[in-house]
């Protein structure tokens, strides 16, 4: 059996410039941040992101100039910054194409990809500008000509319901990403993936992708994961690379491991208001550190210990959250 274990550097080297990529997690939770930082250090370019929703990691990739197409439905930092400044800037300068869908649309696009069908029907969004044909941005850019296998001929399709006469239903095209990067609590030595807490849209994202890279807080024996198979999310044969990176989702939060580092995300969100602020922040926290280990050293132990979760509650009981 091929050993899928590799270094973070090697795993990220599997990603080609121009690839279509998707990630685990939800907004500011369980994002594969160590892999994002490494992608930036390796200077990945021209990425096509497709995400059920985006977050801090997306803003970093966009801010660094690594993204040329974004298809999703939401981008921000939740409580820690409501405006996606990097996307706003790159959209206005024409450096990035933004294609808006809704949660349900992208979710069903992933599910269609995962199920191996070209599209799925949905009722969501009737009557809204998401369906406005004038706002088909990939079409406007002339990219729906079939030359890029990741870009469907149409943003949406429509078909009359042939079974129950419920009217014309909206069709969303399958998403077929090249790579899905997952950050999980545990992965087996052979690649079986266990995700604890909410699974968000990880299953659909991973199954839709051609290649799956799993970064985990810990690599554990397969036999251990097989004691409770009902808690596992993905079988090993779907996984192409496994990497052990403790704290690899920082500053996003992770059920049972560590809480969101809100102050850190807020610092980035504030810096991202300007182009120079973004570059300075990336110089300090991404390009200025050689590895994830150096990044953790720079954060320091007491900061991380404050975020560490209580093993009963699965969240940190020490992290200061509100203003009281």
């Amino acid at each position, binding site marked *: 059996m091929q050993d899928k274990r590799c270094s973070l550097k090697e795993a990220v080297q599997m990603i080609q410039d121009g690839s279509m990529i998707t990630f685990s997690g939800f907004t*500011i939770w369980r994002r594969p941040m160590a892999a994002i930082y490494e992608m930036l250090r390796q200077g990945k370019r021209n990425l096509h992101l497709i995400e059920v929703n985006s977050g801090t990691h997306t803003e970093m990739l966009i801010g660094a100039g690594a993204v040329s197409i974004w298809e999703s439905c939401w981008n921000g930092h939740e409580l820690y910054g409501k405006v996606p400044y990097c996307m706003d800037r790159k959209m206005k300068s024409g450096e990035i194409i933004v294609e808006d869908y*809704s949660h349900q649309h992208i979710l069903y696009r992933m599910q269609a990809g995962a199920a191996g069908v070209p599209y799925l029907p949905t009722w969501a969004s009737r009557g*809204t*500008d998401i369906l406005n044909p004038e706002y088909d941005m990939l079409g406007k850019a002339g990219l729906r000509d079939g030359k890029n296998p990741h870009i469907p001929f149409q943003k949406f399709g429509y078909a009359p319901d042939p079974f129950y006469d419920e*009217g014309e239903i909206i069709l969303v095209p399958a998403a077929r990403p090249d790579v899905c990067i997952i950050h999980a609590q545990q992965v087996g030595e052979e690649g079986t993936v266990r995700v604890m*807490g909410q699974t968000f849209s990880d299953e659909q994202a991973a199954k839709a992708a051609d290649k799956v890279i799993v970064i985990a807080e810990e690599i554990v024996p397969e036999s251990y994961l097989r004691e409770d198979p009902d808690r596992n999310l993905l079988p090993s044969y779907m996984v192409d690379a496994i990497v052990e990176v403790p704290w690899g989702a920082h500053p996003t939060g992770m059920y049972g491991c560590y809480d969101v580092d809100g102050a850190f995300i807020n610092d980035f969100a504030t810096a991202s208001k300007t182009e120079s602020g973004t570059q300075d922040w990336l110089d300090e926290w991404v390009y200025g550190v050689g590895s994830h280990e150096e990044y953790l050293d720079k954060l320091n132990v007491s900061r991380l210990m404050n975020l560490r979760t209580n093993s009963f509650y699965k969240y940190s009981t020490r992290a200061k959250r509100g203003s009281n």
Partner: protein
Amino acid sequence: MEKVLVQNKMYAAPGEYTAADLLAVAAAREVNNDEVVFAGTGLPVLAVMLAAQTTAPDCKVIYEAGTIGSRSTSLPSSVGDPRCVEGCSIASGLLDVFDQLQRGRVDLAFLGGAEIDQYGNVNTTVVGDYLNPDMRFPGSGGNNDINSLAKRTVFIMVQEKRRFKEEVDYLTSPGWRVRQWPSGEWMHRRQAYGKKFLGGPSAVISNMAVYRFDEETGKMYVDTLHPGITEEILQENTGFTLDFSRCRGETLPPTHEELDILYGVVDPEGIFLPKK
């Protein structure tokens, strides 16, 4: 028609509560017991947690990121928070809960927005021309889906003239009178959704008033004015002509008990409600 809603000394006096307190309390009062409530991040979480502690102990809360029936003892700062998992009956993912939404299982949902028009159409995507925007906002998220497919939705919004508009810059989320694409024709929501019509926006709660909708004309009208707000002040802060003909009087302020629960039980850390 009852012009002044009943008040007595259990209600807090002006100065004893903030606009955010009133928003949370008014929103919580929209929840009926036993309903399945879909909640997004922010004030909606505050409102459903307060409702669960007061008038609707049997409501079932679904958080958008995939937890069902949470019994959180610590306020989730977002719907992806591990605090949503505490005491929940199912921790799953988005596919599960959005399938349930489309299936018609959701009675009530709370939403926010950057702009709203008189038909309850909401914009959370851009300010300005979509093709040449002044400012980009986070985008639809689940706003569009939830407003498309829940039986009732309640919007919680800040009242400003530039936010309460004649027509929204981008129609992210469907209200009562919507544009049917690909033709772009305006039509009543009931017509646009056909056999899949499940309901629509039922209220807007701002920091100044509570609005409801006439389901036939699809138009918003003023239901109650928050204490201290006059018709003139409200109209000055609205970009379209308001209908006061069905106004019932003043919004009931928070009770002391509701405030105690909000600050003592729901948000003692001051995540959404900093200490006054």
